[in-house]
């Protein structure tokens, strides 16, 4: 369905088709709004690639070497079953959509992550911006807060690519440590704003000399970061947003006292204060369970993901923020249906599952399907380009607009793609 990337719909065609009803009325509503919508996105990133057969696409009727050790459990939506190690998530199933038909063409972590976050197959000659950076550029900052925040840290492919360093994410650190505060968000005790002003004055003076000799986009980016740093240091909203200690103990427990759980809670606080795009990850490639998959999943990865994801959905819902917050849980690919000799699952990019919620996406549904072994997508294939097209559309960012690379080449924020059919229906 989405294989032909050379004859893409233009935005106008797309609007017309939408209004004709081919893609549903609510999508038309989203697009007709035209102006940038005031939504934010929280991306729970399962770095390393999360096994779909162990989470949202179980195959209880498949042979043991495929179905693995986990059993399905019912959810609060009749007919939808997910993994037994996601009990909290099961009680929030009415709030999110499971998409069982993601597929990619990259089986290598770095390349797959790059593909999924940029909407382009990686090219050695041009570094594409990640979705968070594009959203940063398009929507800008609010309340002195950085528009794009990475919790706890940034990883390859999270960056701004050819858009230039100023759209790189702010690194928030691990909010699960006691007394958490992002580094350097408070001036040293004996430095006041007068002194900071004096310093900045001298800095500009020195820079002016240098600027006469050399100019570069990186220098401009560093300048913009100085300004943003002053804004951030002065912003009471920012201080408040990062103050995760202000949350009630019970709520912190509900998210789970893990880096991912507290990361998701921090993400909600940030979004509430005006941050546009937050990535939350446990770390780098933790889901890469080539060996001992079932123990690692049930003891470590799933319980903390379960509380974090379910806690986030419930909390956003209670605060009435789910309509304006897009929540996505995904990794760069799935894992092989066939369990390997080391009780692990290997990389599998032909089919995997992701979960989407909020921003007008109805919950309690399963979209797409895989075959009886979970090897191939049999219905509604969605590729990285389509997912990014969808995210940009939801944000009101025209996926067909063009940016100029440093050498003047026009490049779109995503390499084609189309809105995931039925996502808003």
């Amino acid at each position, binding site marked *: 369905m989405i294989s032909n990337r050379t004859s893409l719909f233009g935005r106008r065609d797309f609007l017309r088709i939408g209004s004709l009803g081919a893609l549903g009325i609510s999508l038309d509503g989203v697009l007709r709004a035209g102006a940038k919508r005031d939504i934010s996105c929280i991306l729970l990133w399962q770095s390393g690639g999360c096994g779909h057969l162990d989470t949202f696409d179980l195959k209880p009727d498949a042979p043991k070497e495929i179905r693995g050790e986990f059993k399905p459990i019912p959810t609060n939506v009749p007919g939808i079953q997910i993994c037994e190690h996601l009990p909290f998530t099961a009680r929030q199933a009415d709030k999110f959509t499971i998409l069982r038909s993601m597929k990619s063409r990259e089986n290598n972590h770095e390349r797959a992550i790059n593909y999924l976050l940029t909407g382009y197959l990686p090219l050695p000659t041009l570094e594409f911006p990640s979705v968070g950076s594009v959203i940063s550029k398009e929507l800008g900052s609010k309340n002195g807060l950085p528009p794009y925040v990475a919790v706890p840290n940034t990883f390859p492919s999270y960056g701004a690519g050819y858009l230039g360093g100023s759209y790189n994410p702010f690194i928030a650190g691990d909010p699960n440590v006691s007394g958490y505060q992002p580094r350097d968000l408070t001036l040293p005790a004996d430095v006041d704003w007068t002194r900071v002003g*004096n310093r900045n*004055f001298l800095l500009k003076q*020195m820079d002016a000399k240098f600027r006469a000799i050399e100019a570069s986009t*990186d220098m401009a980016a*560093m300048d913009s970061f100085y300004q943003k*740093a002053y804004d951030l240091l002065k912003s009471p909203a920012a201080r408040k947003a990062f103050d995760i200690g202000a949350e009630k103990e019970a709520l912190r427990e509900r998210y789970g006292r893990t880096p991912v759980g507290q990361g998701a809670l921090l993400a909600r606080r940030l979004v509430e204060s005006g941050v546009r795009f937050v990535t939350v990850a446990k770390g780098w490639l933790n889901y890469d369970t080539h060996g001992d998959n079932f123990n690692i999943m049930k003891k470590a990865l799933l319980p903390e993901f379960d509380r974090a994801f379910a806690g986030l959905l419930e909390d956003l819902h209670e605060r009435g923020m789910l309509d304006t917050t897009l929540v996505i849980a995904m990794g760069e690919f799935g894992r092989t249906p066939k369990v390997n000799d080391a009780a692990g699952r290997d990389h599998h990019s032909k089919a995997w599952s992701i979960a989407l919620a909020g921003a007008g996406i109805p919950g309690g549904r399963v979209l797409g399907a895989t075959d009886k072994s979970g090897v191939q997508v049999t219905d509604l294939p969605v590729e990285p380009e389509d997912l990014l097209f969808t995210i940009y559309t939801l944000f009101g960012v025209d996926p067909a607009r063009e940016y100029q690379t440093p050498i003047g080449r026009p490049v779109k924020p995503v390499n084609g793609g189309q809105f995931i059919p039925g996502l808003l229906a």
Partner: protein
Amino acid sequence: MLLTSTGNTYDAPEVSFYPEMKKELDRASTTTQLFLGVSIECARCHNHPLEHWTRDDFNGMAAFFSQIRFKEPSGPRNNEKSLYLDFKRQFQHPDTKQVYLPKALNGPVVTVSDDWTDRRELLADWMTSPKNPYFARTLVNRMWRNFMGRGLVEPVDDFRATNPPTNAPLLDALANDFIEHGYDLHHLIRRITSSATYQLSSIPIEGNKRDKMAYSRYYARRLTAEQMLDSIVLSTGVPEKFRSQYPGTRASQLAEPEIESYFLDVFDRPSRQLICERKQPPTLNQALHLISGDTVQKKITDARSILAGTRNIEEMYLARSPGTPMTKSGPWPSAPSPKRRTRGAVTRMSSGRC
């Protein structure tokens, strides 16, 4: 040499090259990218769409690394890794289970004469053979980038027909010279640094302002994380303390990237897992760290700081940068009250500019 190292990581530190790469295919990919400047990653799954690398090339390279085995750490040094060779071990492709014999890129299948050959030595011999088209060019290109700010082939690990060097005769001449002098790095460094090109001024003149790849002037570039931290140390006279390192150890002397330093990390010190060149993008966290972080603040308030006491800020300023410091109302007063004023100037110097 790194490639042929064996033993444990304490006695033979060069062994540390290997443990990060779990499988033969990873070793093949990394080694090729680092030493041959060629990215064959695409050929892991399919024949390269644009270049002539095939999956057989990739698997052949991987087969050079099949004998590598590790012993688990025992005893008190729990981060110790010991590399030994299982001479008979063949490379079996993880998916197809097919056994591949060692074959260098664009080279013939290597026949291993007996069971006691370290295949990596064969690879090293092939790499450093004067006829090898990749190794010398990759090395001189990396060195050139190190000194000039931009490789003749850029990125330095992406040599391919569709990414030609900006100055092919120069690259060839440097590579041949390097080979003729027995791969002597010191000689290569002397060659580059004694060239007229290296010694050009960085101040542009009319006509070469926009030049970014012809080396018509010296390109200013950002200090690395280590250089920046060492510069702050030098400007203030207060050494940085690294955990379990001798006092006075400089950032540029640190043996491994695992030694904790927020400053170095925030300014993009690369981890051992990454094999690409560092990019050093500017970030908001860097600006914050320079404005309100503890690195600069600790150094300028330390009792050992050359800024402490009654020394003259103007002197110090002049020693580190050209020109007279100015305040909003004219030249900086020559005898400022040191505690209040001095801290400003050092922050400027460490503002992340070259």
